[in-house]
């Protein structure tokens, strides 16, 4: 059921490929660079974790097509609200890898200014970013701009009240928002059928009076097309759109997780056949846009970015205790300064 009726651009089982109008060769190659950059970030992070160079890490292997499709369907002025699993999506908006690595290293420099890149902070509590995205998009409309926003979340997130209240409010205020649900069919160890009795997650949109699109989440161009349609609707003042991108969580939930306790290995193996990166590279090859040389070059470029990123991160000195107290308030209660002073005194700083 879940896999039925998904729109695709890249052919499967002998179906022909399509070209997406408006996407010239350059644009396709840019999408490729984004896909590979995210894949490389993810692969290296798993290695860095095993080397004890970053902390627990939420793996997004197999979801790069969704993240990439979303970012490329937006303009630089449009906002992105990532779920915790989309931690590195900011790379596609120019955030340095070091910043995101520092977030996973628990270093106080692991933050960025959302305003600079129009990417909200990593949101750890599931679904709670949906109302933020609704409010931001609403605010953009009130500001009279035609900028839009996209919010990413998972299948499990759709069970949360925060998703419901955010989506409903977005529709009522006609917020220029695209709600992108990464239906990877698992919430940690909880399968989709234990999450909802709905036939599809796109069905959730009906209750908000919101149009919905269902796409193959392994197909970056299908995601791109759907989100672009939603963005167009948003800009023209017609309110939010729901996009269900169906994938499968073929990797562990996070570095700490042992999926063997619950997941079906055959299904995982089957999904790896549809890995979004080779799928898109095949498409480019058939168009004659990608050869081994370029593939290596792009890969190298990404690896270089990661090497630089981890080096920069590891080179940074540990944060000062002052930072425990900074930034909580613009105008802090006087007690904070006293507490800091006391802390430094005790620890002979």
């Amino acid at each position: 059921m879940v896999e039925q009726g998904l729109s695709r651009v890249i052919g499967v089982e002998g179906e022909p490929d399509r070209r997406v109008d408006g996407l010239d060769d350059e644009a396709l190659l840019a999408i490729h660079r984004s896909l590979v950059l995210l894949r490389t970030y993810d692969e290296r992070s798993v290695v860095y974790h095993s080397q004890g160079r970053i902390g627990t890490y939420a793996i997004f292997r197999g979801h790069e097509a969704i993240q990439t499709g979303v970012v490329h369907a937006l303009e630089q002025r449009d906002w992105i609200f990532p779920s915790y699993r989309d931690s590195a999506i900011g790379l596609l908006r120019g955030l340095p890898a070091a910043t995101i690595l520092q977030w996973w290293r628990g270093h106080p420099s692991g933050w960025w200014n959302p305003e600079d890149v129009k990417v909200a902070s990593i949101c750890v509590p599931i679904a709670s970013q949906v109302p933020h995205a609704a409010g931001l998009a609403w605010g953009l409309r009130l500001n009279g701009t035609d900028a839009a926003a996209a919010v990413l979340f998972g299948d499990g997130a759709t069970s949360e009240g925060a998703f419901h209240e955010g989506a409903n409010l977005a529709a009522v205020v006609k917020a220029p928002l695209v709600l992108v649900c990464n239906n990877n069919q698992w919430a940690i160890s909880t399968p989709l059928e234990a999450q909802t009795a709905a036939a599809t997650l796109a069905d959730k949109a009906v209750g908000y009076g919101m149009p919905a699109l269902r796409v193959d989440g392994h197909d970056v161009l299908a995601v791109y097309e759907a989100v672009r349609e939603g963005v167009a609707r948003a800009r023209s003042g017609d309110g939010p759109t729901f996009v269900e991108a169906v994938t499968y969580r073929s990797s562990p939930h996070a570095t700490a997780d042992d999926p063997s306790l619950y997941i079906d290995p055959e299904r995982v193996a089957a999904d790896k056949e549809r890995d979004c990166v080779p799928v898109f590279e095949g498409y480019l090859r058939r168009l004659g846009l990608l050869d081994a040389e370029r593939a290596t070059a792009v890969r190298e470029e990404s690896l270089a970015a990661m090497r630089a990123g981890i080096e920069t991160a590891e080179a940074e000195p540990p944060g000062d205790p002052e930072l425990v107290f900074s930034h909580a308030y613009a105008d802090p209660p006087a007690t904070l300064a006293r507490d800091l002073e006391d802390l430094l005194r005790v620890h002979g700083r």
Partner: protein
Amino acid sequence: MSATAVTAKELLLVEAVNDALHVELQRDGSVMVIGEDVGRLGGVFRATAGLRDRFGPDRCVDTPLSEAGILGAAVGLCMAGWRPVVEMQYDAFSYPCLDQLITHVGRYRWRTGGAMGFPLVIRMPYGGGVRAPELHDDSPESYYVHTPGVKLAVPATPADAKGLLAAAIRDPDPVVVLEPKLVYRTARGAVPEGEHVVELGQARVAREGSDLTLVAWGAMVAVCERAADALTGEASVEVLDLRSLKPLDEEALLTSIGRTGRCVVVQEAPRTCGFASEVAALLAERAILDLQGPVLRVTGYDVPYPYWQLEDWYMPSVERVVDAARRVLAF
């Protein structure tokens, strides 16, 4: 601070709230009011009356019935440059928003390394004594003040209701303002016209005294004043209206206890981990040598707020405050 305020007019406390909103929305085009029934109706207590007509349906918005969604949207509105003033219709109906408050409102600025501000306000009528059905009577200040990254103010007079709300709206940080609904329409007083700001973190000596200090906020300030009256002749009682619980005017508190040496703290909320406990702990920590007797707390009880025919047994009464004061004085 109350710079341009020249003349004053007599207002009820809820009218002063409404006045503050009119002045601040007029003053700053980025201030907007959102909440349930704040627009067409002007709020179930009329606190937002006239705003929708005057500033339009985009600056005074009737939202869907979803407190968490409303506060979450306010976070996003801040990111778009707005300064949302969120009304929660009643104290106990604000609880669905606690998750957004604790996980985001209080942390988002910190999360951006101070790069983004979240100058939103959450205002709500709070407290008991109004002969209402269940869950229209809570005093939720503890849940809010325990949460890092937020500030909290509680006016006791019409002038402070206007001045503290104005300060909250202009504050760069998220501020919760609890309005004592018990005195919405009974507390009447002179309120400066035009712009009027009462800085957060400055307690008010509601009445001077030298033998004992009654510490309170919101609707309990008037109860303490009546208790002070009742003690006339017996003792000279100071009444300290905290006005803002975070930031707290520790200075004023310690100075007063330094003079009187005796303290009773009065709150409507349940006792355990209430703000009265915070005040007492502060004195046990910083004023132990000044204390000439125990610090007593007169509070609501650690039980659900009762049916309203029984609420006078639950709410701190003048008798209970006087009794506690006498026990400290006789210690």
